[in-house]
């Protein structure tokens, strides 16, 4: 087992354009999966939940706008990193997973539970769904953290 990545390398990855551009794409990707799979295909999520508080509605709208912009801006920022010769595939993959994991956790804990924007599914025992949802988020985040460390150890490529 080799030693952990040096601190300065780790900070380098976390400050790189590749990481943050892909982070934005990761957020938007997860939001897209949420929208397409759970809202449209499965029809589990509701467009509007009567239990939603005003704060929930406000935060949902802001997050939605952020996702929409993140999706497009993320790709432009990645292209910008590329043309400046600052693109790192490893850092980008790390950012993608960290972004998607954090979004999934935010959605599972803050949106579904704290603000009650909507639930994962209705008329079922919700606990197992919540657990699976947040475990998936945690797993994505863990993969992202691992990739970040890997990117810091072998920054080239």
């Amino acid at each position, binding site marked *: 087992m080799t030693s952990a990545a040096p601190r300065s390398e780790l900070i380098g990855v976390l400050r790189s354009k590749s990481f943050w551009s892909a982070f934005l794409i990761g957020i938007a990707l997860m939001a897209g999966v949420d929208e397409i799979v759970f809202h449209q295909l499965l029809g589990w999520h509701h*467009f*509007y939940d*009567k239990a*939603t508080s005003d704060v929930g*509605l*406000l935060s*949902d*709208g*802001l997050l*939605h*706008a*952020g996702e*929409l*912009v993140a*999706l*497009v*801006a993320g790709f*432009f920022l990645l*292209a*910008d990193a590329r*043309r*400046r010769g600052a693109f790192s595939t490893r850092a980008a993959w790390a950012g993608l997973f960290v972004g998607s994991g954090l979004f999934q956790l935010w959605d599972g804990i803050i949106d579904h539970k704290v603000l009650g924007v909507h639930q994962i599914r209705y008329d079922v025992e919700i606990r197992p769904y919540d657990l699976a949802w947040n475990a998936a988020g945690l797993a994505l985040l863990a993969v992202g953290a691992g990739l970040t460390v890997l990117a810091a150890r072998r920054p080239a490529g």
Partner: protein
Amino acid sequence: MPSLLLPLALAAALILAAGVYLAAAARPRTGRNLWPAHRSLLWLLGLATIAAAGLGPLADAAHERFPAHVAAHLLAGMLAPLLIVLSAPGTLALRTLDVSRARRLSRLLNSGCLRFLTDPAPAAVLNIGSLWVLYATPASRVMQADGLHYLLLGHFFVAGYLFTVSIIGIDPAPHRRSFQLRLAVLVLAIAAHSILAKHIAGHPPARMPAAAAEQGAMLMYYGGDLLEIILVALFCAQWYRASRPAAAQLDRRAMTT
């Protein structure tokens, strides 16, 4: 008989607008490039979009059914302004008019009132704010009135145009705001639009069936998303071009003024 007079007036105005633009675009200019054909096409598509919103079957249905009403608004207030802004009518006017008239036009465009109205924040408040007033207050009752329908479509086209031009305008504007400010306003405007859509789903305007309200709200939400993604992509493309490494210094003025 207002139900025939107003559509005829609108049709005449649109045909006139198409003719004037095409005549200006076709005018031979010595020593200058031809006016790009795709801009003329965008102008025509923009006018056709206004026609689709204000004339014909959709306009008729818009009186009866809320989803059709929302569709007309998406066309007149978002798609048409986008197409018209990209057709750069201001640029065409400035290069077609003689010097003294062009100067008068650019003075008008620089006047305090228009500067204010094409500033991102006031333009966004006007655009989204009037939607909120219309759908989330008792004002929603005026939607059904016949003459007011045209007035509203006209209002939403103008408000949509001012907002779109404040974010991605390509006509000369010496007072263009920074990319950061425009991005912030854009995010807030998109948020306000989607929040209003969900608010309508939860609180249908007076005397509107809940099912129609939800259908219309979903069309407003997802239709708005589609057009907003195009707007964001155009905005990002402008940023991408302006911040290219070699030209960064050259474009810095345009970015910060």
